[in-house]
């Protein structure tokens, strides 16, 4: 029996959702026009006034916002409320450049936590559950977001934050945590550590996990589910829009429902900026229609994915986005070929290797090289040198057919690749361009 946190919203009719979106978008554009001069100038440059935006059908007329705009407008340029009405900031990890700082009113936080609560209930959470939040707390949105959602659902919340894996495991076992929230790479690490301790899935009280903040493959999901004996659900979000909970997976585990009462999603051609027809793959663009303090219109996420309006067996009516392969920032261009780390992960797990890998890109005599470091496992090791080399070649072939380019595979010692307690460092790019 599927349960919902806000059934009247999550299962609303398409007409109702559209009506909300039309009304809220018009209001939001006026709010931005009145309070965010940075965006008003962009609209004026296109000859637009709020009167030109009568509903979702006019959305495509509005100018885009990109990460570059956020940097230019740093820190207050895109804030839509007087600071006396703002109660919090959160910030990105700054891995791809200058940090982005996002602002929240109390109302913004409230709606954000509702979104996270929807995700927890969709993963089977109730007030009987013990929810361990092992995302980082602090500037990162993961910890505060799921913490707030967990409170709203009424779970007993264990705010461990990330790190100190032994202690994480101690709390999971001693307090019988049933739901784990963290990055997928940290979930895999916790699982690996528990396995090394000799714990089998039936000795681990967890039943569900809500994992996000980085791209992960379907194979990695299977791996985590098997090791921890849980159902693993994806959750998606961006600090720029609020944090986790922009979209989340339901029991169908096939794409994430976007909270369309708060965010309007579009898919565009990343090169031309043109809106693509429904079902096409392209760059995901979000317009936040309820945020007060940081109201971003047509924000380009750099995430590549597609949307599906196919009826979902869970009963939710909000559009689903397929698992993104990764951000365009994560995408590597190697010898002119686009490569996402998640594609490499898929091949590794298909061939029985663990998701402990690192991708080393370099440039030797003006040719890009791709070297995938994979940890050897006891299961894969044999005394037969030919057999080990054969498996290595098999992996090279698998990578070639997935990526369309030749990669080198280096087998490295177990545990030699540094484990992550937050977002994993998958790529080392040594090219000096």
């Amino acid at each position: 029996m599927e349960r919902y946190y806000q059934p009247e919203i999550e299962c609303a009719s398409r007409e109702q959702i559209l009506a909300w979106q039309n009304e809220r978008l018009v209001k939001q554009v006026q709010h931005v026009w009145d309070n965010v001069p940075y965006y008003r100038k962009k609209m004026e440059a296109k000859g637009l006034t709020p009167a030109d935006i009568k509903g979702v059908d006019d959305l495509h007329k509005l100018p885009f916002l990109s990460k570059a705009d956020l940097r230019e407008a740093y820190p207050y340029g895109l804030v839509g409320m007087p600071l006396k009405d703002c109660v919090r900031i959160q910030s990105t990890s700054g891995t791809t450049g200058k940090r982005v700082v996002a602002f929240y009113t109390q109302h913004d936080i409230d709606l954000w936590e509702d979104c996270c609560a929807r995700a927890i209930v969709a993963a089977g959470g109730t007030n009987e559950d013990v929810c361990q939040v092992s995302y980082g707390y602090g500037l990162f949105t993961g910890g505060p977001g799921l913490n707030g959602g967990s409170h709203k659902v009424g779970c007993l919340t264990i705010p461990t934050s990330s790190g100190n894996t032994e202690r994480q495991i101690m709390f999971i076992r001693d307090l019988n945590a049933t739901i784990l929230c963290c990055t997928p790479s940290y979930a895999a690490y916790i699982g690996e550590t528990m396995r090394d301790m000799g714990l089998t899935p039936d000795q681990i009280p967890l039943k569900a996990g809500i994992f996000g903040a980085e791209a992960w493959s379907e194979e990695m999901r299977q791996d985590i589910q098997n090791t921890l004996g849980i159902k693993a659900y994806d959750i998606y979000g961006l600090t720029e829009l609020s944090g986790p909970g922009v979209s989340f997976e339901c029991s169908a585990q096939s794409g994430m429902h976007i909270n369309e009462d708060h965010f309007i999603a579009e898919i565009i051609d990343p090169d031309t900026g043109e809106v693509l027809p429904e079902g096409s793959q392209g760059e995901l663009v979000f317009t936040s229609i309820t945020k007060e303090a940081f109201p971003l219109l047509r924000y380009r996420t750099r995430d590549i994915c597609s949307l599906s309006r196919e009826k979902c067996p869970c009963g939710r009516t909000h559009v689903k986005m397929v698992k993104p392969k990764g951000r365009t920032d994560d995408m590597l261009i190697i010898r002119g070929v686009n490569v996402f780390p998640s594609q490499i992960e898929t091949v590794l797990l298909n061939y029985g290797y663990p998701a402990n890998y690192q991708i080393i890109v370099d440039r030797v005599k003006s040719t890009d090289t791709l070297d995938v470091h994979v940890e050897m496992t006891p299961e894969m090791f044999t005394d037969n040198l030919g057999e080990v080399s054969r498996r290595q070649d098999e992996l090279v072939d698998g990578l070639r057919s997935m990526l369309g380019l030749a990669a080198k595979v280096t087998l490295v010692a177990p545990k030699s690749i540094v484990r992550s307690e937050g977002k994993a460092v998958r790529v080392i790019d040594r090219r000096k361009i």
Partner: protein
Amino acid sequence: MSLKQISVFLENKPGTLHAMTTALAQNGVDMRALSLAETKDFGIVRLIVDNVYDATTVLKDAGFIHSLTPVLGVMIPDEPGGLNQVLQVLNEAAVNVEYMYAFLGGADADHAYMIFRVQDGEAATAALTAHGIRLVDQDEVAGL
């Protein structure tokens, strides 16, 4: 009758072999024979030791991936033609040798010992024994 060879996976980079021998030395594991096979980026160290249980525990704790492989320890007269005679027997019995390596017999100066990894261990043991060639077992190796 076979010996338990420990095969260890090593990354082919400076210091890994030393890290392994350090772990074994610190825990008093005595090596009887060692051979190293390598490719461009990884290697397999093959070891015959006095105490297999201790050695594998040490390796596991130190984080080395390893496996156990049955091999034959053959006593060979330390004289010209000694090895040839053994290989002749195996050849006649149509036993394929995958790899082999030598170790000297410690206090016993008359004999050398060879480690053989063969495809058909039983056939090899039968053929060698029938020709009066002595195989050593794990206890014997420990005592050498």
